[in-house]
């Protein structure tokens, strides 16, 4: 086994580029989901909204306008191969520097205040939120969400009981989206995290947003649950931008893990119709 060396500066450059790309170029998975939504939407207003979203994505790409003015809090998912040595700097500082450069060079909005109750804008969108896993191998994988707050604010977590079961989990997820109504900017990507502990469920629901839009869970039972949730959410009538329609969510991504005999945590993390996600492997 050999140790592979990766320069901290290369990580900074990769994060910088992710910030800029993700905020200007909507992913093909998301564009495909919006086009499928346009084909199935019955509401004339809903179709108009979806057409405008696709037009916006094109203008953002070709004329270098950010897809949304809320260019998000930067959430970085770092998978660090255990055979990697980062040289020439502190790994976390390298990521923060990438976010600083990306938001500055990309004319992206600084949207972070220094502390929950001391609300002075930090001016450069740092600190980013970083979730690190050490994994086998000699690569560094960086997942990135430009996480808008309007939809994050409508997210929810419940410590259900085993007796609540599947039915209780479905009711809780659908209720969260029903209550949110037009606020989180539908049609949505719905991340659901179940199991683990309080904080693991929340993190699973956020990681679920990184999946290609509409890609089903490999577990057939969970894939069936995703389809059922999507049907129930799209029966709510909220529709594109909340003006009424058939398409309230584009996709539901469920992740589920081992949990305590006493627990059934369920977290719902929402992403808006400007869903911006990306990844790169070094």
């Amino acid at each position, binding site marked *: 086994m050999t140790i592979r060396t990766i320069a901290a500066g290369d990580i900074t450059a990769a994060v910088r580029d992710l910030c800029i790309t993700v905020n200007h170029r909507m992913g093909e998975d998301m564009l495909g989901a919006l086009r499928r939504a346009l084909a199935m939407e019955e509401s004339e207003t809903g179709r108009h909204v979806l057409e*405008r979203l696709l037009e916006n994505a094109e203008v953002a790409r070709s004329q270098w306008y950010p897809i949304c003015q809320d260019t998000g809090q930067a959430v970085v998912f770092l998978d660090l191969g255990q055979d990697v040595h980062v040289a020439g700097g502190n790994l976390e500082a390298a990521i923060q520097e990438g976010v600083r450069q990306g938001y500055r060079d990309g*004319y992206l909005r600084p949207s972070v205040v220094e502390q929950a109750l001391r609300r002075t804008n930090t001016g450069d969108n740092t600190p980013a939120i970083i979730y690190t896993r050490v994994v086998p191998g000699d690569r560094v994988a960086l997942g990135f969400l430009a996480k808008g707050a309007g939809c994050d604010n409508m997210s929810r977590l419940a410590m259900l009981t085993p007796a609540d079961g599947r039915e209780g989990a479905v009711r809780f997820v659908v209720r969260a989206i029903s209550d949110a109504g037009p606020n989180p900017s539908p049609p949505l990507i719905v991340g659901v995290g179940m199991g683990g502990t309080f904080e693991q469920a929340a993190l699973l629901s956020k990681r679920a947003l990184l999946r290609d839009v509409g890609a089903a869970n490999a577990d057939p039972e969970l894939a069936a649950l995703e389809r059922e949730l999507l049907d129930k959410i799209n029966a709510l009538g909220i529709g594109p931008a909340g003006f009424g329609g058939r398409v309230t969510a584009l996709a539901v991504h469920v992740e589920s893990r081992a949990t305590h005999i006493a627990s059934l945590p369920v977290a719902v993390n929402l992403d808006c119709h400007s869903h911006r996600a990306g990844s790169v492997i070094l």
Partner: protein
Amino acid sequence: MTPRRTVEVTVPFDVERAESLRAGDAVLLSGTIYTARDAAHERLAGLIAGRLPLPVDLRDQVVYYCGPTPPRPGRPIGSAGPTTASRMDAYTPLILDTTRLRGMIGKGKRSAEVRAAMMRQRAVYFGAIEGTAALLGACVRDAAVVAFPDLGPEAIHRLVVERFPVVVVNDVHGGDVYEEGRARYRRDPA
């Protein structure tokens, strides 16, 4: 909700014009609007509570709940979509009652208190589509910070807009597009 008609509105506008607008109307706004979101609202409410003058006369004006992205060189502004209006609900009745503000642009539902204040003061709530922030930014002809520059993206900007597309969500007569649209397409038995 199907827009019944498209109406051109010049900002500022008066009570009579506000009363002519109906929930569901597609509106193209032209003229001057002012951005203000969370931090600016907190400051405006503080000034009103302290009986101090406001930095902007809001009578018959429209406030846009928006924190734009910084402009690229040669542009007045970057992307400029709406933020969630309900976060401003705590301040809105006070602002409507003291300034005679005529309109607000945002996204999402308003509280019962805000809707009552809108009917009382004859003010309109317009919805814009957040995911069209690039298209909305391209409708802005001129932008300048006119108050609270230390707030950065949350400063009050004066925007000159041309045919800026919005929908009347709540009119002065009690109409609500979100409720009407959702009721039409709802299929759940609950």
